[in-house]
């Protein structure tokens, strides 16, 4: 047992940390602001991703034949946590989800076309699984793909496609076999986002991000742009979701928020008395740091299990996501309770404590227990696959 990084891992963590300090960019890295996706389509962010690519830090765990370094996923974990700690953008869907799935299941053609671009941060993806009737019930996708000469013709609708308004390629699940069962009739496609048959309609959210609805009107996709075997889409998506749950929900943003809260609470006063001396504040903060330590344990547990290779460790990933995202929300709620009336001042204004960071976070973190498989879906997974409870839900 060893809770420390190995000397090599520690050296890498130090290197990344130093690099992020040296390459500090106030536009993409602002500690008073939630960082994960809201800067997604800016030129500054794209430039930052190119710099990360130039360090060869994208796709480190990929096999060497595809441009990776075949090193353990723990290095990607270290990178992701460091990025979050410095309020920098996350490495994103390309390397963690789409690249890894293409490496496992994609044709040579797709690998050649996409993998180098992903490694060089030249391509932005949007992920289209969800539909109005297929959220948690992802296998229920109805977007219809009809076989035509040389490819497929897609008609129907997606919803909740984040980044559809600026992405280059669309990673989409569609129903290719109307007669097969829910889980066996789906296939995965890659579609250029600028296809004239796609219509993107923005959906503003209570967080700062916009997400989108996407309508498909006779979108033709050539056969070469189907991923893997027809009918296997749901299996690929499930694997990709296991990866996403972890890659997209790093703990550091929440750790960083807790750190900011503690720093603020140590100094702040109300009625000329130090806020930190209020027994209720002391209690809330003791609980926040305790639960953060538990969440860290669950994430380390996932990383260590993932290191053994094979499929991503589902139980550990579900437990981590379930616990950490609920905590992330609770930290924001507790922070606003501690800040009182000033807590409501909208993010970005100087009058708000920590420039309203917790006001913004309070709204933004609501989606964490929903997206990427809701808490209830994680509980179903744990109940069935870990505790062996009957398959009735």
């Amino acid at each position, binding site marked *: *047992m*060893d*809770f*420390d*990084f*190995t000397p090599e*891992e520690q050296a890498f963590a130090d290197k990344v940390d130093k690099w992020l300090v040296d390459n500090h960019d106030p536009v993409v890295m602002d500690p008073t602001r939630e960082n994960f996706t809201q800067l997604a389509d800016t030129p500054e962010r794209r430039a930052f991703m190119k710099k990360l690519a130039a360090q060869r830090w994208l796709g480190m765990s990929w096999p060497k034949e595809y441009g990776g370094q075949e090193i353990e996923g*723990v290095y990607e974990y270290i990178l992701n946590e460091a990025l979050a700690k410095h309020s920098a953008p996350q490495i994103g869907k390309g390397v963690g989800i789409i690249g890894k799935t293409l490496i496992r299941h994609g044709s040579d053609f797709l690998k050649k076309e996409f993998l180098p671009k992903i490694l060089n941060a030249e391509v932005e993806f949007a992920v289209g699984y969800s539909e109005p009737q297929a959220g948690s019930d992802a296998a229920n996708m109805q977007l219809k793909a009809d076989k035509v000469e040389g490819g497929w013709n897609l008609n129907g609708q997606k919803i909740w496609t984040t980044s559809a308004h600026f992405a280059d390629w669309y990673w989409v699940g569609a129903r290719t076999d109307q007669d097969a069962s829910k889980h066996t009739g789906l296939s995965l496609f890659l579609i250029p986002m600028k296809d004239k048959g796609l219509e993107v309609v923005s959906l503003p959210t209570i967080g700062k991000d916009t997400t989108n609805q996407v309508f498909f009107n006779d979108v033709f996709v050539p056969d070469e742009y189907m991923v893997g075997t027809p009918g296997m889409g749901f299996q690929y998506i499930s694997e990709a979701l296991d990866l996403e749950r972890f890659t997209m929900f790093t703990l550091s943003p929440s750790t960083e928020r807790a750190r900011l809260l*503690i720093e603020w*609470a*140590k100094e702040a006063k109300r009625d000329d008395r130090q806020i*930190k001396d209020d027994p209720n504040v*002391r*209690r809330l*903060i*003791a*609980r926040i*740091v*305790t*639960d953060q*330590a*538990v*969440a860290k*344990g*669950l994430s*380390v*547990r996932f*990383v*260590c299990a993932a290191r053994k290779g094979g499929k991503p460790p589902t139980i550990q990933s579900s*437990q981590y996501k*379930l*616990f950490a995202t609920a905590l992330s929300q609770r930290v924001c709620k507790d922070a606003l309770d501690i800040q009182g009336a000033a807590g409501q001042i909208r993010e970005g204004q100087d009058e708000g404590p920590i420039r309203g960071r917790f006001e913004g976070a309070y709204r933004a973190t609501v989606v964490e227990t929903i997206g990427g498989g809701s808490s*209830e879906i*994680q*509980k*179903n997974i*744990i*109940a*069935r696959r*870990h*505790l*062996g*409870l*009957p398959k*009735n*839900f």
Partner: protein
Amino acid sequence: MNLDFSEEQQMITDMARAMFEEHSDMDAVRKLEDDPKGYSDGLWKQMAESGLLGLTIPAEHGGGGQSLLEAALVYEELGRALASVPHFVSAIMSGGMLTEAGNDAQKGAWLPKIATGEAILTPAWLEPDRGYGPVGVQLAAKADGDGFVLNGTKQHVYFASSADRLIVLARTDAGIDLFLVDPKAGGVEMRQILSQSADAQYRVTFSNVKVSADDRISAAGSGWATFETAMYDGIVLLAAQAVGGANKALDITADYCKIRTQFDKPLGAFQALAHYLADASTRIDGGRVLVHEAAWSRANGRSIRRLAPMAKLFCCETYADATRMCEQLWGGVGFTLEYDVQLYFRRSKQLQLSWWDTPYLEELVAVDVLDS
């Protein structure tokens, strides 16, 4: 980073589990409820022979010299089995205090015997209507000639009736001191107090009890620091015990939910129940990593001023919450004495309230986070 056990650590776990399964099955646990002695000679002897009693006692004093991490593995198993033994009070708390601060004579006299189980020592710490911190220690030790005279009352003194020595926390002119007191000495009286978990604990009164200056552990006024150091290690092990108990209660409850049917379905097919279990399993697994991190940190010479109270706070609360939930899932039978789940339920709350409770632990964490 690597959370795997070494082969040796795995062996300790397996050995402890097998031993407790054999010598502390639920019949044995039930037989010891409210028993004045509170442990069985059979298990005690087995633990001595296998080296578990002296596991953490330094090798030069006849122990195994193992770290808190190995001890945590044993305590998780002890928690699963609800094994009742004076190991915590004797080897961990008393052994810990003597190792930390005892003089050569005290170490030589007691540590080897603790390691073999020949002697049992237990701390006499808490007092009626007083708290967990240093102010709670008010039992008076007045200097008298070249010794001291003790007057006062202690409560929650575990296994006092079997003890060869009590380590009494007392207030002297210098502050708090620790005294090795023979429970058979004149003026010591003890009475068993029945507790929620039906363990063997005593109220001990001291009326003009004489102790010699040689029986003070370490320098005048150093008692609380010595006690606290042992406690920080101790609470990590109690957290491990809580993880073991909670996990076992969850296991038996999940199994019950697979076989008990209502409304033509197994209980586990009702999502309302399955989600309770999924939440509890997540907290238990998370608590276990925290315990390991605390124990590992201690074993590697790091401070555990924050990790240790966090571990006990989180794991004991998880144990109490999880077993209350389990009671709910067993329905009416869980409320009867006949079923085992209540054994875990009662002990979990007792563990949470003992050896620093939730508010005290929260404050320890808050001091470390906010005041440093």
